[in-house]
């Protein structure tokens, strides 16, 4: 905690009080400035979402809307935001479910039955490091041939390919932490595998499944390049709807802000709620090795 403070400053004993106080105030001042810098563009977008059209382009800009309005939310929904949210939900949810169905058995096998899991996990996970521009060209040519271009199924396949390695790795790490004795006990009692799976494995790995699902949802929800290249007018995910709306007409910042807030809000809240858990598991992960 304050250990580093002490060692970094090692003040003579008499001075500790005053210097300590100044140091603390200074630290908090710097941190608050950083928080402001981190949030400013986002907060500005949030404020803009409540401005009527006439106020959007006033120069200098108004800090708070003089006539706050909700009209942007309704308009943003109908100009493509609603469509984008629907398509993103379809694609992100389907690919996440597919990732979990394919990933959980594989993770279990890697965690429990595979001596060389390290090697195989590494190979699987290294797929994730590809810059998306590399697989996307191949996917595009392949989907053109298979008739999957601009289809939900195509994009679901692409996102599953993108997220499956991470889901497998994450779940395998999680399952490895569940004591094997539970499963052994069930087996000795003669429970069939599906009972062991439903009654023991699934409840015990629920937090891991949640984490994997949230991350997979989030990556699919935020992803842009795949949906830009692999879809046309039939499937329009949220990031693509936003980019189209932004680039191909005079940007209506109020509506953009409104769509952006609706698109990001639920995800941000979920992340804030899960953050403590996510960071802790990750910290233990790094420290434990």
């Amino acid at each position: 905690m304050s250990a580093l403070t002490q060692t970094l400053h090692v003040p003579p004993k008499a001075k500790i009080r005053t210097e300590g106080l100044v140091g603390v105030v200074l630290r908090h001042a710097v941190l608050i400035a950083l928080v402001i810098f981190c949030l400013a563009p986002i907060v500005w977008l949030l404020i803009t979402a409540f401005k009527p059209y006439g106020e959007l382009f006033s120069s200098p800009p108004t800090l708070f809307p003089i006539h706050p309005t909700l009209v942007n939310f309704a308009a943003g929904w109908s100009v493509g935001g609603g469509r984008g949210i629907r398509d993103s939900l379809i694609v992100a949810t389907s690919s996440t479910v597919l990732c979990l169905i394919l990933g959980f058995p594989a993770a279990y096998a890697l965690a429990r039955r595979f001596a060389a899991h390290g090697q195989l996990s590494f190979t699987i996970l290294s797929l994730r490091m590809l810059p998306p521009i590399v697989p996307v060209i191949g996917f595009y040519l392949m989907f053109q041939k298979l008739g999957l271009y601009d289809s939900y199924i195509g994009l679901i396949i692409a996102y599953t390919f993108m997220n499956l390695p991470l889901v497998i790795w994450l779940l395998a790490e999680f399952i490895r932490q569940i004591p094997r004795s539970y499963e052994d006990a069930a087996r000795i009692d003669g429970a069939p595998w599906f009972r062991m799976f439903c009654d023991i494995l699934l409840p015990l790995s629920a937090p891991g499944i949640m984490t994997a699902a949230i991350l997979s949802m989030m990556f699919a929800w935020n992803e842009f390049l795949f949906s830009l290249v692999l879809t046309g007018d039939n499937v329009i995910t949220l990031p693509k709807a936003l980019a189209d709306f932004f680039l191909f007409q005079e940007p209506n910042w109020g509506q953009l802000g409104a769509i952006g807030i609706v698109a990001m809000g639920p995800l941000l809240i979920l992340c804030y709620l899960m953050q403590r858990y996510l960071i802790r598991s990750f910290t233990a992960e790094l420290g434990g090795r």
Partner: protein
Amino acid sequence: MQDVMKGQGPAHRRRVMPRADGGGGERGTWLLLGPALLFLTVFAVWPFCYLIYASFTSYQMAIPVPIHWVGLGNFEALVSTARFWHSLGVTAAFALVSVPLQLLIGLGIALLLNGISRGRELYASLLLTPMMLAPIVVGFAWELFLNPIYGPLNALLKAIGLSPPAWAQSPAWALPTLVIVDIWQWTPLVMVILLAGLRSIPTRVYEAAKVDGSSAIQTFLNVVAPMLLPYFAVAFVLRFIDSFKVFDIIYILTRGGPGTITQNLAYYTYDLGFGRFQFGRSGALSIIQLLLLTFGTMLIIKVLAKRNAPPSAQTALPAKVTERV
């Protein structure tokens, strides 16, 4: 399919202790692993074959001429253009300027957070916000924020008597602007990783150093830094890999412009493939990126591993989890 088949061979031979690993033996293992491996193999190999094929041919979608084999022609044509070298430079700006800055600033913030006793979690949560946002949203939030006419930042700067640049729209400032946005979004990831590292150092380590009479700077250099190095390596490798992926913010903020000033390799590849449908060139360029990335990553791991703190691939990988967490 091949992988499933392969697994069935040894299954018969190792039947000696079938239930020792949870029943079902190796056949069961491959049944569990099979679907996922099959999926990954098919969708890694198939598109990759297309990519390789395209990069050695004159594959162009829009022009109805027969496709013919050109060998290394696409690669040669690429490296002889100034545009390729320029976009390589832009990618390098992200990998070799933006990433080190993120590491430095992230280290600074992590040390700051480690040094306070109250509100650490709240600060950390708030500071993590940027990396949870979709890069597209980040792109237009900054576009609005930096707008020279009705954006708040320039209004503020003008109010205090400065003459701010047009940021993403000015040739001189376009690339620095993108680097700033990249730093803004991804420094939090570095901060989280390094903070985790700092928190993992036991208090008694500092106490021991203090008892031995080492100064603050000595303690940091001789005690904290070596213990932090594996975490630093994780952050470096992750951010290096991700720096090749920068695309969305360029697409929104500058579209590679003004002119082609801010096109990195990823954007150039996109432009070649989906702007002009020159899939041969585009494929060749993406293979070049793959090679650069692989060798760059191996080099970083090798250099950092030499420093007596092995950031092996295994240590390096867990952190991927918190990417954008």
